[in-house]
């Protein structure tokens, strides 16, 4: 335990100072250290009770590698947050100030509070909030551990960390960093064995806290509650597998909580900052309706409206997979895509979506192609993993609530891929990262089950050969 604490402390301190003074060696040292830890874990040289320490250390090192660079904040949207937070520190949280980031209690309440405790806004953004955000993989580790044991949970959490959205994009959105901690706690509650009403109440409170922090994460939490409830009702109607044991009290409690969360969100976001978030929802909904209607009508006249007061939250100028992230809401269809209707419509989707489904494989460099193969492998293993999970429930202690969220995640991803222009209205890479809260364990299940089946297949083949001989 001491080794784990000392080594990770040394890693994060080295990262902090090295990044601040822009030492060229530090990023390589961080990558090397992470690789070393991962190998040691694979070889069984690390005790399972040390996994959370290593997870936290590696996560924080990756985050600070970016946020601690130079003497000021790093990113694109973070500057707007800096603006709002400094304003709140100087003048208090003025809910009428016309900036959508002003809907966030992280900037309006937390930042002034920490400033009063002597932590300047600059260092909150550079050091404090990333240190809080680094807890997300640890919380997810404990959630996954309940379902599949410590070792599998470690690999699943590690995959979550390694997806670049974690340490490249979200790190440039302070309000999202805090909101995702509440979202991770929601995931933890989904897997815990608790009294139904306590679980539902906790989930509802955490969803509301997530909304307080970031309108996007709050919206997605709402989606998971509503979408998950919908899937739960269907699964309960089918009444097979783990859903046989689902009590209607859970369904009812979650339903009430979902209504409460939706009501809170509408009331809160209708009244703060002149209702700009609700306007954004209306425009996104209108755009989706128009595009889908236009698609089925065969017309090319689908017009995407961008809300003028909702800034395109680009997350970062640094792309998650080598391209600029799509703005969060209401942006126009990307320039590169041909008009819908002239080609197969999937070519009109956002660049990252086209990458995810392999439509731009031919245009990538050699390195880009290799990366894409790895990415497709992870996507394939996630899908396979879920397939195996459906048929091998007893091996893993997945709760019904968690499973419906996996279904909801797949629905969200499919909508992103196949619904025309949906992906250009929402930040695709960030959506993918949120779905990984539920899908990351599927990768590990996929690797293990596919590996197991291959081993069995090889074993049979060997036996067959021996018999023939």
């Amino acid at each position, binding site marked *: 335990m001491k080794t784990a604490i000392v080594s990770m402390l040394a890693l994060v301190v080295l990262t902090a100072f090295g990044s601040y003074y822009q030492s060229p060696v530090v990023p390589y040292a961080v*990558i090397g250290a992470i690789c070393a830890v991962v190998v040691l874990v694979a070889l069984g040289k690390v005790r399972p009770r040390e996994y959370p320490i290593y997870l936290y250390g590696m996560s924080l090192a990756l985050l600070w590698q970016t946020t601690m660079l130079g003497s000021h904040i790093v990113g694109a949207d973070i500057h707007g947050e800096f603006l709002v937070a400094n304003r709140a520190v100087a003048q208090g949280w003025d809910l009428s100030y016309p900036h959508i980031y002003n809907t966030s209690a992280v900037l309006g309440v937390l930042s002034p509070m920490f400033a009063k405790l002597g932590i300047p806004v600059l260092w909150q953004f550079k050091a404090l909030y990333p240190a809080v955000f680094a807890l997300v993989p640890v919380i997810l580790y404990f959630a996954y551990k309940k379902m599949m044991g410590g070792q599998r949970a470690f690999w699943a959490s590690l995959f979550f960390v390694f997806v670049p959205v974690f340490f490249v994009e979200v790190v440039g959105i302070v309000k999202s960093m805090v909101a995702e901690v509440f979202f991770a706690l929601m995931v933890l509650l989904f897997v815990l064995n608790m009294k139904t009403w306590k679980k539902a109440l906790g989930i509802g409170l955490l969803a509301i806290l997530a909304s307080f922090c970031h309108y996007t994460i709050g919206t997605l939490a709402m989606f998971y509650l509503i979408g998950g409830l919908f899937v739960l009702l269907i699964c309960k109607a089918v009444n097979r597998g783990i859903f046989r044991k689902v009590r209607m009290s859970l369904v009812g409690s979650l339903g009430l909580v979902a209504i409460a969360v939706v009501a809170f969100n509408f009331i809160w976001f209708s009244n703060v900052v002149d209702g700009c978030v609700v306007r954004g929802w209306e425009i996104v909904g209108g755009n989706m309706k128009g595009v889908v209607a236009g698609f089925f009508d065969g017309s090319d006249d689908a017009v995407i409206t961008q809300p003028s007061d909702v*800034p395109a939250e680009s997350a970062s100028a640094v792309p998650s*997979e*080598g391209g*600029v992230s799509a703005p969060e809401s209401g942006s126009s269809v990307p320039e590169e895509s041909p008009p819908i209707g002239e080609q197969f419509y999937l070519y009109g989707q956002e660049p990252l979506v086209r990458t995810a489904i392999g439509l731009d494989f031919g245009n990538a460099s050699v390195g880009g192609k290799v990366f894409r193969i790895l990415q497709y492998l992870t996507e394939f293993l996630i899908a396979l993993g879920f397939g195996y999970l459906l048929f091998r429930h007893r091996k893993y202690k997945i709760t019904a609530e968690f499973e419906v969220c996996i279904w909801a995640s797949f629905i969200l991803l499919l909508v992103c891929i196949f619904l025309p222009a949906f992906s250009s209205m929402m930040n695709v890479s960030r959506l993918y990262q949120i779905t990984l809260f539920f899908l990351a364990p599927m990768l590990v299940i996929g690797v293990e089950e596919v590996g197991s089946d291959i081993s069995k297949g090889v074993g049979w083949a060997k036996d067959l050969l021996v018999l023939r001989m």
Partner: protein
Amino acid sequence: MAKRFMVVTCVLLLAYFLFTSGLVFEAVGSETIDKVDMPYSVALSDDRIGVLEVANEDDVACARWLAEDRFSETSAILFMDVWSTYYRGEQDWVEWWNNDVAHCTATKIIPLLEWARQERLPVVFIDGDNVGLVPAMEAGRHGGLVTNSADEFDAWLKERGIKTVFYAGYAVNGCILERDTGMRAMSALGYNTVLIEDCSLPAPDWPYDGEAALAEIWNELGGIVSSEELEKMADGDFQIFADYNGVRLMLDYYDEFQKLSPNEPPYKHYLFFTSWNTTHKKMVFCPTAALRYYTPLHSLEGAVKLYWKGDAVVYLAP
């Protein structure tokens, strides 16, 4: 979990991480960031490709200057050697230069001084050789500092929190640059020194060429403005570019930068901003790392280099 599966997962995730950490991108020396190809890392690759232009303290100082400093509160105008008479030297050129100086003094410098007093801007008069200043300037009668001492000048500036000194007077390629209170010396003390070009003149046949002096001021000191631009800046009418969203910022400025530097793609002009108490004027601000992507400053047609600290530069564009 069986050990062999742990190893397989380890291998898969490590291979994935080598890409997502940006290590492969850096190792192959890729520069593709304008489309989706491979992930890259700010920490590893920013120095090479300037993907995010990490800010340093000079950048922050520049941004704070734009955000928090007000023109009239942190700027002063210095009138250098606006003498009442020019004595003949060994060459005849002095006579006709006298005419130029007299004309400039009457039509540009005196009106500038009157405007500065109207705006209550701090003014400074340097009479370098104690020749005697033009009486019309009434130096010392309406406030302001009359001095030849760099120390006194420095202390006076510090007392008033002045960070930028605009220079008018004579001569651009002589005293304005070379005196202890001149642009070079005050710049070395950390002040931003800017020449008001139409309120100054270079001396002809001087050892240091007038054009070379202007180039030095433009490239190495605080830059050059006109009196008209100065008045616009004080009035707040001068257009500068800013926004509070990095991506939109680049897109907003792309057209402007296309006009100014048509060969530079927009992503190389990462525009740093911070200005939580700005009055919604627009500003152009270039962090240090972005400078290497700019074509030489004189090609930024119409842009005025307003503030300079270290390598960070603030431009005002018309």
